[in-house]
């Protein structure tokens, strides 16, 4: 009887530890962008060779191909990030660079013991997303964009729609 009680106690102790020592909750979200066809604005359109690099960053974030949804991390230590977005980056003739700058306010909110805190973002309104051409003008490949929500606190929704 005593042994059973001790075992039960041990089981309770460890079942308790396991759960909340590993961070499994959703933490700092990324900005979610969906790409649409400008000639048919309700149809998703896949990007090809979209090379994305943070302005002033030594390495690219990623090159996206064959996807219509991408996620861009925001800076948890600053209030703005600027991304260089080169479409058809593998082609020497068709490559086209546009810049997107995101301006936002940050708020740190408590998550859990294992995760600590996370940062959620609120895009400035207006001026949350600023679209510019590259230094050497090569026309804009992004025809237009549409901010869906200025509050970025989950990756389960689309924050920005881009038409090209």
């Amino acid at each position: 009887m005593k042994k059973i009680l001790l075992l039960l106690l041990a089981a309770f102790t460890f079942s308790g530890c396991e759960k909340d020592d590993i961070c499994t909750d959703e933490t700092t979200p990324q900005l979610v962008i969906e790409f649409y066809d400008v000639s048919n604005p309700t149809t998703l359109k896949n990007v090809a060779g979209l090379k994305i690099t943070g302005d002033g960053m030594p390495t690219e974030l990623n090159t996206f191909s064959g996807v219509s949804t991408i996620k861009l991390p925001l800076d948890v230590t600053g209030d703005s990030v600027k991304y260089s977005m080169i479409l058809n980056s593998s082609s020497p003739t068709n490559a086209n660079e546009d810049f997107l700058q995101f301006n936002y306010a940050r708020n740190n909110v408590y998550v859990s013991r294992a995760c600590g805190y996370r940062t959620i973002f609120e895009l400035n309104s207006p001026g949350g997303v600023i679209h510019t051409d590259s230094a050497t003008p090569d026309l804009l490949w992004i025809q237009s964009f549409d901010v869906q929500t200025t509050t970025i606190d989950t990756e389960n929704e689309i924050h920005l729609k881009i038409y090209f």
Partner: protein
Amino acid sequence: MLLVWLSFSGNAQEKAPIAKDSLKPKTERYGLRVGVDLFKLTRSFYEEDYRGIELVGDYRLTRKHFLAAEIGNEDKTVDEDQLNFTTEGTYIKVGFDYNTYQNWLDMENIISVGLRYGVSSFSQTLNSYQIYNPNPYFGQSPLIISGEKFSGLSAQWVEVVAGMKAEVFNNVFVGFSFRLNRLMTQNKPNGFDNLYIPGYNRTYNGEFGVGFNYTVSYFIPLYKATVKAKEKKEPKSKKKKKKAN
């Protein structure tokens, strides 16, 4: 034959019907026992981030039931990977213990199960925290020093207690107990959580907790009561059998 009878009655005093003979009626002592939790006290010395004291007491109500209470104060700093915080507060637990142990002769040892209701009033100070960022393309945020204090917090819980106490010498008892806690209500801070509650200890998901104490206590006898023998009406044939022995 007398010897056999004596030893028999000694072993199973409660069960054996007391014969009308020269045996003295059994008395048991009732009183108040007060003590201190050595576990918390020693932890205060060897653990730099912990300071705590707990006073324990129980009062014998019936042969088997004890009114029991603990009162304490804790100040604990917890350093997690993502968080560092200090909890400081006072608690009181009140309930009862039920002694399941059949003592021999005039021993007063206790193996008990019991229940407590605990109430704690405390404050938490968030010393520092980290931002959890799974996509650190622009780098991780440095440790953020906060120092924000959340006051006026409270919690209430129920404990199931299993413990034992043994009399080591005259009126001095040592004992320990294990506790399983179930949080009933709590007043959570806005923008943080009660990750440690004085008296309840660490909180887990699912609102269960565990506790332990190691006590040394002193029994103050107040009065004595005669143990009433249970009147058992046994069939005559059985009685005859015993006498035949």
